[in-house]
């Protein structure tokens, strides 16, 4: 009893309410440099781009929605949208899917860290160097000559005619997507792998005792358990891929029908000087990203609440 009383007394001496400091106006000094830069580089350009998108190529006459109309009617620009959609679907599925498969496979392999490094190294390489690396892989020589590009040399072994990987419009977009997948699979693999380590052992044991096969276990246990992480990785990839520019820029410059929205934006701006159309493309890209952005913020807010 005596101890309880002392404990209570001690509890009383500690201020019952959390010690709260008042509103700190100096906080605005702390955030000022960042906020000023961000207004200059994000808010102001966004507003100015939206304005420019309703003006003509030289930003002199108001043209209403003509630039947007052009994006959705001009066959070349429709191809650009189609390519971006192809990127969005194929590159996202491949980076997340391959990342997941590799992460599951290496989870019980002893040389896990070496394998991880091998897949992860491309993340440290610039798009420019990756471009050189893959141009070198894709080199095309006429059929009767020695193939010095690895891919065509492999085809030659099987007596298949050499392919112009980045030029043939039947598959050149896939050749470019392969470069991105090569660079980014390691990223999703590392994140998914960390989530896999978080699955409790008893869950796996229980499933195994119940006689679940490898495949059942993968779909019924592993995937549902790491679903939130898969969501995060997918969102990250979607945002990345929507904005894809570098790979296309270094591999083809958008030629041979491989252009995407960000590449076309760059070309309209710096090659053709069409400010109106370029701005409309940029606005379109931002609108496409908005839903994903809201998803992302909702997720972050939910995590804030559980903190």
């Amino acid at each position, binding site marked *: *009893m005596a101890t*309880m009383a002392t404990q209570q007394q001690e509890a009383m001496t500690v201020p019952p309410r959390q010690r*709260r*400091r008042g509103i*700190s106006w*100096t*906080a605005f000094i*702390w955030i000022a*440099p*960042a906020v000023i*830069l*961000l207004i200059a*580089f*994000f808010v102001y350009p966004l507003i100015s781009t939206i304005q420019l998108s309703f003006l003509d190529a030289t930003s002199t006459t108001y043209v209403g929605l003509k630039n947007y109309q052009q994006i959705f009617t001009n066959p070349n620009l429709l191809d650009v949208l189609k390519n971006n959609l192809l990127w969005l679907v194929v590159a996202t599925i491949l980076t997340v899917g391959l990342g997941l498969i*590799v992460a599951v*496979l290496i*989870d*019980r*392999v*002893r*040389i896990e860290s070496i*394998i991880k*490094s*091998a897949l*992860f190294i491309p993340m*440290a*390489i*610039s*798009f*420019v160097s990756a*471009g*050189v*690396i893959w141009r070198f*892989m894709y080199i095309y020589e006429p059929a009767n000559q*020695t193939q*010095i590009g*690895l891919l065509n*040399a492999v085809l030659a072994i099987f007596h298949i005619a050499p392919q112009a990987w980045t030029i043939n419009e039947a598959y050149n977009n896939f050749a470019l997507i392969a470069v991105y997948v*090569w660079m980014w*699979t390691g990223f999703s693999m*590392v*994140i998914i792998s*960390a989530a896999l*380590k978080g699955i409790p*052992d*008893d869950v796996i044991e229980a499933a195994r005792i119940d006689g679940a096969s490898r495949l059942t276990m993968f779909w019924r246990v592993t995937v549902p358990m790491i679903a939130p992480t898969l969501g*995060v990785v997918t969102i990250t990839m979607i945002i990345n891929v*929507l904005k894809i*520019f570098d790979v296309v820029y270094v591999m083809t410059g958008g030629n041979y029908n491989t252009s995407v929205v*960000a590449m076309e934006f760059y070309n309209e*701006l710096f090659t053709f000087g069409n400010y109106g159309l370029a701005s409309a493309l*940029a606005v379109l*890209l*931002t609108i496409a*990203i908005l839903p*994903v*952005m809201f998803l*992302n*913020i909702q997720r972050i807010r939910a995590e804030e609440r559980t*903190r």
Partner: protein
Amino acid sequence: MSSSEIPVSGGAETTLAEQIVAPARKRGGRISSVQRAAASPGVTILVVVIALLWSVPTFGLFVASFRPPTLITTTGWWSGLIPPWNFTITNYENVIQANGMGQAFLNSLILAIPGTIFPLLLGAFAAYAFAWLRFPGRNLIYFIIVAMLVIPSQIALVPMLSLFTTLGLTGQYAAVWIAHTAFGLPFAVFLLRNFFATLPKDLMESAHIDGASSFRVFWSIVMPLSVPALASLAIFQFMWVWNDLLVALIFLGGNPDRAPMTLTVANLVGQYGENYPVLTAASFLSMALPLIVFFSLQRYFVRGILAGSVKG
């Protein structure tokens, strides 16, 4: 009576502790590696094959860069692996002497070091305010900054280019520093605020009670405790700036004296097209430092990725 209470309260404490620790332990992963069966040899072989496939493109470029120019353009790099070996450093000598890769290396450093320190510092200032100071609009401003993480940076290029040109900054190192600071800030604020928010509250409170100013708390408590997060972020930002092409391409206004390695290599691609003796050596030189950073600090790199995307 009092003595009988001690074990009870002690018992209650352990239960509470268990309640807190147990899920954490579960989340921490395996208790013993024995419980999970080791991978079958088939799986091991499969992942080794995947890892080799992933390494082949880089390895091929690496081998090619040490082959004599005439051989690079006439035979596949893999034939260079068969003895008698014929390797040389001519390509590297040529690239460094003739194509200004030495100056480009220096430029990359001059651009990347301030381009890493500035966003880190400004981001930390803002993150500290968002995590530990109370002010109107705190959450709103923070979430607007997080939203900026996804805005395509291309949007900023034209308005900023015209502003920089007016200010006479275009073609200067400073233009690239400022641009990289701005583009790096959303991620820096996001990652650091999350880390700062996990620091023990009591520590800040007691420092304030002892009369320490916010500025002092920031420099002598928050920053030293956040070294792991700062390191992850620094590596990230450094790699990002070092590997960047677009910002340098636009804000340096084609000034070759200040071009970083990525820009020099990109120009070589444009100039020589398929001149692989030059390109292989040049791109390998530009990859050298990021690869060294990556291999020596891989742990921090991975931690930064995890903190940025999973912990949220």
